[in-house]
């Protein structure tokens, strides 16, 4: 089968550190 076209929409990702910060602030908000 012919290879399919590449998915087009690039999902922007935060860096690992940014992800951790987001996660920490989520944790802070939790009761």
């Amino acid at each position, binding site marked *: 089968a012919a290879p399919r076209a*590449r998915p087009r*929409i690039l*999902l922007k*990702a935060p*860096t*690992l550190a940014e*992800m951790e910060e987001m*996660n920490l602030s989520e944790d802070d908000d939790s009761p």
Partner: protein
Amino acid sequence: RPLNIPRKEKDFQGMLEYKRDDEPKLIKNLILDLKPRGVAVNLIPGLPAYILFMCVRHADYLNDDQKVRSLLTSTINGIKKILKKRGDDFETVSFWLSNTCRFLHCLKQYSGEESFMKHNTSRQNEHCLTNFDLAEYRQVLSDLAIQIYQQLVRVLENILQPMIVSGMLEHETIQGVSGVKPTGLRKRTSSIADEGTYTLDSIVRQLNTFHSILCQHGMDPELIKQVVKQMFYIIGAVTLNNLLLRKDMCSWSKGMQIRYNVSQLEEWLRDKNLMNSGAKETLEPLIQAAQLLQVKKKTDEDAEAICSMCNALTTAQIVKVLNLYTPVNEFEERVLVSFIRNIQLRLRDRKDSPQLLMDAKHIFPVTFPFNPSSLALETIQIPGSLALGFISRV
């Protein structure tokens, strides 16, 4: 209770459907609560990674970018969390390094990028992501894998460290060679120490344990080679550093013992088919130091031979070994100061580091060569033991 009508595998498309609200439960059951030594022992290697990827595929199929983003972020944070909690457990770290790499390979293999599709079956090509390019998330996962690798190295270092000096230097296995202690030197280990003392066998057994866990978790063979190379580097560096600090380790018979120990480590590599891992080469400074203890150290020719032989040792290390060298019997002689001067003169043009000790904490840069899997996603079943009844095969 809905009737579960069995379907043929060819009817499945290799995706897993879950409700957005169930994502925390998915992460909890599949990442946070999964015990590598319990349930995970019976799983196919990399199963958590395949499950997560099949969930990503379904979110991609739905064209739901928020669901994809959320799952990837929660996955990465879940892995980081479990490694924070059980980061000193070799099995946990090895398990998540293997799975993070497998997840990364899946994201490449099914990315739709031709360079990653060369080994795919036509069915696998049909399973490529449809809507989203996850290249940036691949980079994050690769960064995460590097962090986990470094953590793995620290864990194995902590386990190996207490064994090395005892097993590689102090414990003597060659009968008859070491009967005589260097005159004027006291044995560092007490006579009662033997019970709790690590031997070369302890080190080899530990290497076997590490190796079998890595294999059991389906770690990429190229990554296993890098782990083994790093372990051997640590063993070589710690051994050499101690030799360079201890007069009682610088004798002809210790040289013999070290060479024997190194040969056993080489034998281990051969046995595990890891001779091409670069591990043996990391022992070269130690091998040369052991040879230096054993060669003649008197004439001009001896000096010449030493200088050409010891190319993996720095001048400071060579001179230190010669200075520490201690004869243990009447057939051996102390190294004359003039001989050491001779060596120093010959090596003065060498542009090597003035450092005496090796950096035992050095970690070689790690790479994760792409390793596609032949496993057909549509055949993957989820064992009940994972408690993931809320996700369904699509």
